[in-house]
């Protein structure tokens, strides 16, 4: 999951006028008696509404052996219908309203999203509330869907980035569930058709109102009618979420490394990653870390200029300083021009880190990063669907929208010295994992 801080513009002016906060829209948060949280963001939207159901369960919650990939698989099952609205009927109704409907799963959460005309909101609330409470599928449906998930895995195997990520995580983590990717280990995917009973317990454990947040954005002003609909259809949903005991990753004390073969002559990939803190919008280390990612590997970084523009030994350079619910990974991924360049690229990354440890970044460079992150965020809120998509990770990780303004306020407090301190403290070799993917014939 990425918290992508990309923004549009509508809001900057509004935000400046309304408050010191960055988030430009008024929003309301309500919590039902059963624990279901509802966030409503009215905004002008040419008659459109975005409806997001955010389940705060992702692949990090797959703590039992052999169950990796299950959160994602279960996301697929959520489209298999209920007694009242069997899959065909659900599809027919969604199709008839011309909704743009889909879902995705990340390490930390699962998100079901629809974008549609405001007049269809009552129908959408009814359909979504029904499937979240009354999902019902046959064993045949379950097993067929397992085949589709395997197809998704196969599709990913021709993407070297996905192959790299799988090996990287397996190496970087010992016990935490970030050890596996969201789609899961192949052996577990292959075994999914036999997990029908487990799937039902998964639904009972995780799909509970106290683990779900509904976000509705768009033409919903006044919001009372929307809230009434949600109370009416979700009010009887029984709470009972029990958080899983996600293993705590022990402190890493020695560098790790993995070589990853890829079938075919793809461009080599190099990932240099370090253990990162959990996301907390008030944590100065987190804000400094996200700025550090830009300073280290962004398009105006010395590393980018040297490797991509001058030496041309790297074709793509990406800072991967992600926000995650538990301590995850931060780092740099380089798509390298030739295998023979790998050592010098790895050394250049190490040198760039050492330089950041040695002296603080230029103040104007840090200010440019802050402006970039702020404008990026604001420019990504143009439509209800964009806005909800942008907010979903914030909500999943922090439980609300307030974290946006908290984060940007924290970011303002980041100084060049803070970045230098963080680089020295966090980007230590003993906390690193390096993964190198090379094509083989």
């Amino acid at each position, binding site marked *: 999951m990425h918290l992508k801080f*990309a*923004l*549009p*513009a*509508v*809001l*900057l*002016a509004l935000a400046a006028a309304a408050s010191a906060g960055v988030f430009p829209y008024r929003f309301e948060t309500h919590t039902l008696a059963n624990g279901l949280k509802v966030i409503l963001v009215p905004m002008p939207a*040419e008659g*459109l509404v975005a409806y997001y159901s955010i389940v705060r369960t992702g692949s990090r919650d797959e703590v039992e052996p052999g169950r990796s990939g299950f959160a994602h698989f279960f996301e697929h099952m959520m489209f298999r219908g209920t007694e009242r609205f069997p899959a065909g009927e659900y599809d*027919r109704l*969604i*199709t*008839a*309203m*011309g*909704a*743009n409907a*889909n879902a995705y799963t990340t390490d930390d959460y699962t998100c079901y999203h629809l*974008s*549609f*005309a405001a007049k269809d909101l009552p129908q959408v609330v009814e359909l979504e509330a029904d499937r979240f409470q009354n999902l019902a599928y046959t064993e*045949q449906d379950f*097993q*067929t*869907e*397992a*085949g*589709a998930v*395997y*197809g998704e895995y196969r*599709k990913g*195997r*021709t*993407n*070297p980035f996905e192959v790299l990520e799988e090996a990287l995580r397996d190496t970087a983590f010992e016990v935490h569930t970030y050890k596996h990717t969201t789609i899961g280990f192949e052996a577990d995917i292959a075994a999914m*058709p036999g997990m029908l009973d487990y799937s039902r317990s998964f639904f009972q454990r995780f799909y509970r109102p106290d683990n779900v947040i509904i976000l509705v954005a768009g033409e919903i002003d006044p919001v009372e009618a929307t809230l009434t609909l949600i109370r009416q259809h979700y009010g009887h949903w029984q709470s009972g979420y029990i958080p899983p005991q996600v293993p705590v990753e022990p402190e890493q004390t020695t560098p790790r490394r993995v070589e990853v073969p890829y*079938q*075919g002559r*793809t*461009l080599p990939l190099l990932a240099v990653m370090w253990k990162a803190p959990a996301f907390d919008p008030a944590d100065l280390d987190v804000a400094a870390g996200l700025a550090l990612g830009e300073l280290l590997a*962004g*398009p*105006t970084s010395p590393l980018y200029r040297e490797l*991509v*523009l*001058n030496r*041309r030994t790297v*074709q793509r350079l990406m800072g991967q300083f992600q926000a995650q619910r538990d301590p995850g990974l931060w780092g740099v991924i380089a798509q390298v*021009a030739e295998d023979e360049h790998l050592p010098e690229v790895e050394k250049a990354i190490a040198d760039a880190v050492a330089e950041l440890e040695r002296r603080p970044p230029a103040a104007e460079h840090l200010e*440019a990063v802050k*402006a970039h*992150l*702020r*404008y*990026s965020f604001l*420019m990504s809120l*143009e439509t209800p*669907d964009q806005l909800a998509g942008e907010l979903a990770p914030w909500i999943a990780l922090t439980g609300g929208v307030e974290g946006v303004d908290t984060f940007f306020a924290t970011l303002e407090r980041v100084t060049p010295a803070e970045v230098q301190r963080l680089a020295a403290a966090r980007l230590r070799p003993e906390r690193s994992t390096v993964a190198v993917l090379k*094509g083989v014939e």
Partner: protein
Amino acid sequence: MRLLTAAAFALLFASCAGTRPPAPPAARVANAPVLLPVPSDPTVSFSLSFPAGSQMDPPGKEGLAYLTATLMAEGATTRNSYAAILEQLYPMAAGYQVRVDVEQVTFTGRVHRDHLAAYSDLLLDAILRPAFAADDLERLRQRALAHLTRTLRYSSDEELGKAALYTTVFAGTPYGHLPVGTVAGLKAITLEDVRRFYRTHYTRDTVTLGLGGGFDDALPGRLLAALAQLPAGVPALPPPPAVTLRGRQVVIVAKPGPATAISFGFPLAIRRGHDDFYPLWVANSWLGEHRNSSSHLYQVIREARGLNYGDYSYIEHFPEGGWRTVPPVNVPRRQQLFEVWIRPVPNAAAHFALRAAVRELEKLVANGLEDVAFALTRDFLLTYSLHYADTTATRLGYAVDDRFYGIGPPGHLARLRGRLATLTGEEVNAALRRHLNPEHLVIAIVTERAEALAEALASEAESPITYDTPKPPKVLAEDALIARHPLRIPRERIRIVPVDELFER
């Protein structure tokens, strides 16, 4: 929001005429701009398009249009190094990108109003004052070659299958190579080639300026005055490719991999704006709306059988289907392809999945769309098409494409919605019969089992499907029909190509 017509634009400037001294006749941009003012929008979206796409590549220099455009978008200008440009754009969280397709090259960007002046200066520099620096050329050439030889050949079988389909259908025509070019063509291009191509194809007589969002009244005039500095000239376009398929043919790309990717299609005689395009759109939406579970192909291959991740069909070019949910803008073409995309299936299921998809297409053309399916799809498209263009930048893209297709206000998507209001199932089925003929097909397959699949196809061998899990009797009964469904492809119409030979020249 409203779309200003050329006439309205003339009035806008006429209102200022009295405040300016008379000027001598000056060079002017020939095309009226496409303006989409949205005063409440704090951002401004830009579009600059030129008919300078890859169909204009000289023989032996395939990739020249691509390199020229990317050097403008991702290279130095005579005023700034590329690194200096990035430094200026970065705090704005803005940039400009270029899309190079066979017909059009379109530069786009979006910026907050706070940075409008500085941003538009940088964008104009890129268009008017490209440096065409030697090191930028080498960087971008290297990247383009790596894209063809490493990424496309070895890192995305789905895109590879589609690329093999296009290059086979349009082989020997100006559409016959990918917009990025060929390996030999890219290697042969010199800086002088780039400069000459730029001088010839980037002219004030061909540029179309588009602006959307919260721009002020003065901006269009300022940009047009600057763009008038481009040289004059209208390079002659080649005629659209005239391709007539005879029967079915298969190209199998042999490469190792755990799954088989399949695309098939044929040239489509009509395009956006034609009256039959809209009924055909409905039929195609029912058969294979992109990334949508309402797609019939999706229902047959994925939903009922779990063979893959998705199955879709298209009546217009749709690049980057793997990571895009709605159609792209700025890929207009005078010649389109009808296309079916079957996402990777297990190698053992390839023959079966191909048969299933071809069979569904044949059934659709022969039987037409049932009334219930027609009504449902019509209702779906009425609202779903709103998602195609939900941002100012995308609406601007559609408006610019309307100019290419000669579609006047209120534009293509509005025309669809208007047409849906009166469309009948009979019209849909008549359009299907007129324009889709699955007897003439190119099928592109990426698989490691090339020889075995070729023999199986040619011999019409049965391709029974087995599942790890039980399936309903109805599915199994249909499976028996699919497994024997004739594809009618003789062995001499099946060509096996090693992956490393693709895109060479």
